[in-house]
């Protein structure tokens, strides 16, 4: 776990691409400066926007699903949301032989070796952050269970491979087969010394967090990775204004409010850009719609109060748009008026 988090950028060559589900592509990279990737690590990737003429690049983080030969062969998996027009589209367009800029493996989600028992919990594409952990725990003969939840068998990347590798250690919950995951009873059944590592949609992680608190388990044993890319509402377009600076812009579904404000010329403070540190905090002056808090920086109380938001991940949604129904522009865009430091 002694990985450092110094970003070392390098070129990597695509050596394999495979569609593992309808929307998930597995991409194998050969980096120029290989470095061992411990379980839980990710790489940052500069993806060029296909729509951009100025060679505009976005930085995206992808978990290392598998690292072989001390990092000389790195596998990532990219989920392309049906609505996406941004980074994941460019990643899906990669061909064998293409090169791209990536960091050496970075670590924010280290697996501790030596816990008495483990529960690994993956929802959907979250499996990419969890798969390598499961493999290491299996090799170490650790006491672990891998719980993998998804909508349908066809949408769950690597399910067959994982089943083969982990056998009875793997418990799959598949919505359209009626074996939905019951988070409360999962957490209720845990031995108190279990360490839980999870990655998945915010609903799943939030309900685990609540059950964890209810059962008064040690908060330090609940580990999670969030790239801030999943929310309570489907991402939709909204407007943002900073009256003091005379800035007014629109945030498209595949960009963050922070990115949109930067594009519009605001000098924004930030650090993690994934909803953890709170440095991108802005004050809410007025709101048309609902805040979709996607950060883990604010407490429930602070999120409910709705006075401040982390603009790197959080969004504004139309009231009543819960569950993915995106309102048409004819009804007027949701919007937010903010003040920035």
């Amino acid at each position, binding site marked *: *776990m*002694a*990985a450092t988090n110094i970003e070392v950028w390098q070129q990597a060559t695509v050596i394999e691409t495979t569609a593992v589900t309808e929307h998930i592509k597995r991409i194998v990279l050969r980096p120029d400066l290989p470095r*061992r990737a411990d379980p839980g690590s990710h790489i940052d990737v500069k993806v060029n926007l296909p729509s951009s003429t100025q060679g505009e690049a976005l930085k995206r983080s992808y978990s290392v699903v598998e690292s072989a030969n*001390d990092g000389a062969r790195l596998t990532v998996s990219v989920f392309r949301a049906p609505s996406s027009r941004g980074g994941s589209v460019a990643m899906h367009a990669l061909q064998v032989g293409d090169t791209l800029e990536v960091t050496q493996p970075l670590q*924010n*989600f*280290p697996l*501790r*070796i*030596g*816990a008495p028992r483990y529960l690994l919990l993956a929802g959907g594409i979250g499996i990419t952050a969890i798969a390598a952990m499961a493999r*290491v725990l299996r*090799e*170490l003969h650790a006491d672990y269970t891998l719980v993998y939840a998804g909508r349908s068998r066809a949408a769950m990347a690597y399910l067959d491979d994982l089943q083969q590798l982990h056998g009875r250690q793997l418990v799959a919950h598949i919505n359209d087969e009626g074996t939905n995951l019951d988070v409360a009873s999962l957490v209720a059944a845990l031995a108190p010394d279990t360490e839980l590592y999870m990655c998945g949609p915010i609903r799943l992680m939030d309900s685990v967090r609540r059950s964890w608190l209810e059962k008064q388990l*040690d*908060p*330090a044993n609940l*580990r*999670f*990775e*969030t790239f801030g890319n999943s929310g309570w509402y489907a991402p939709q377009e909204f407007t943002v204004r900073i009256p003091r600076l005379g800035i007014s812009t629109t945030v498209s579904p595949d960009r963050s409010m922070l990115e949109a404000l930067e594009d519009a010329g605001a000098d924004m403070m930030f650090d*993690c850009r994934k909803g*953890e*540190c*709170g440095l991108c905090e802005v004050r809410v002056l007025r709101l048309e719609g609902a805040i979709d808090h996607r950060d*883990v*920086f*604010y*407490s429930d*109380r*602070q999120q409910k109060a709705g006075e401040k938001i982390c603009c790197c991940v959080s969004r504004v949604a139309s009231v009543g748009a819960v569950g993915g129904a995106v309102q048409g522009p004819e009804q007027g865009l949701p919007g937010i008026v903010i003040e920035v430091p």
Partner: protein
Amino acid sequence: MSIAPAVESTSVQTTSRTSNASSTTNKVLGYPLNAWYVAAWDYEVTRKPMSRRIADRPLALYRAEDGRAVALADACWHRLAPLSLGKTLAGDQIQCPYHGIIYNSAGRCVSMPAQETINPSATVPSFPVVERYRYVWVWLGDATKADPELIPDMWQMTDPAWAGDGLTIPVNCNFQLVLDNLMDLTHEEFVHGSSIGQEELSESDFVVTHEGNTVTVTRWMLDIDAPPFWRKNIRDKFPGYEGKVDRWQIIHFESPSTICIDVGVAKAGTGAPDGDRSQGVNGYVMNTISPETVKTSHYFWAFMRNYRLESQLITTQLRDGVSRVFKEDEDMLEAQQAAIDANPDYEFYNLNIDAGGMWVRRLIERQLAAEGRLVPFA
């Protein structure tokens, strides 16, 4: 190792090797990371955190309330303030002295005083720790390989049939120079002339064997006068003994940096070389060297004996006596490191007496190569 060969024989030596054999002409060596190193004596690690650098990694060492030793990176996640200046709290927790972030023994933040939530990324590296043989051992490499079975065998440290004590020497030299020193004891005649040195050391034959990750050098000196240190020891068991002795030194190295030396003398001709040591005194010099940096080391040693176990006086006399002897080594090793640094363009040459040390170097270089870390240091 210098780039330009000083003389031709050096370049012949390095280039004529087959590709799978490692060079043995590096003057000093890097340290393997996938290894257990002693970070501290058991008594040094307490509820009050301490700092110690092992393999270039500053560690904060402390004990949890239940007595378990903990090793965290000695740098807070937030602004890298040393946790060793902080304080331990209930259970296994430690608080950063600067802005009060609290971590548990796994290095996970459990409290972030200035906000209502905890940043999920807030962790400091926590290193595997095992307490064994009166030492606190740490593993700084790949934690998935940290098998306690790999801790070097130093059973004499805690065996009830043995008694003794030791100290730590901070020595300003590369750890390999200490290993070289212990693998060739002919230096005793010149460095330790007033205590354990005698000319028979250089005159007597020795045998080197190696197996797996161990190297053994065996030397017997038969029917000799006991040097002052050993004259005193044999008289502790056989008061007034005047005669000649058979003396032995059996040096056991276990990779990467532990050397236990079976030493002793017995009344000459009483069968010690054939295994009957009843007419002698037997000690074990327990040495384990933890690289602090490439040029500094923590040298942990103890002298254990299997006679007169009840005598605390003898324990203290032996510890002090060996300590004086080792001070002579320390002075020589630091002078040697300084000369190496001052003469970067000069090479090492090897003698027949270096055979033990050369096997040690080969084992360590193999381990470094396996870790992809075999790089020459100047």
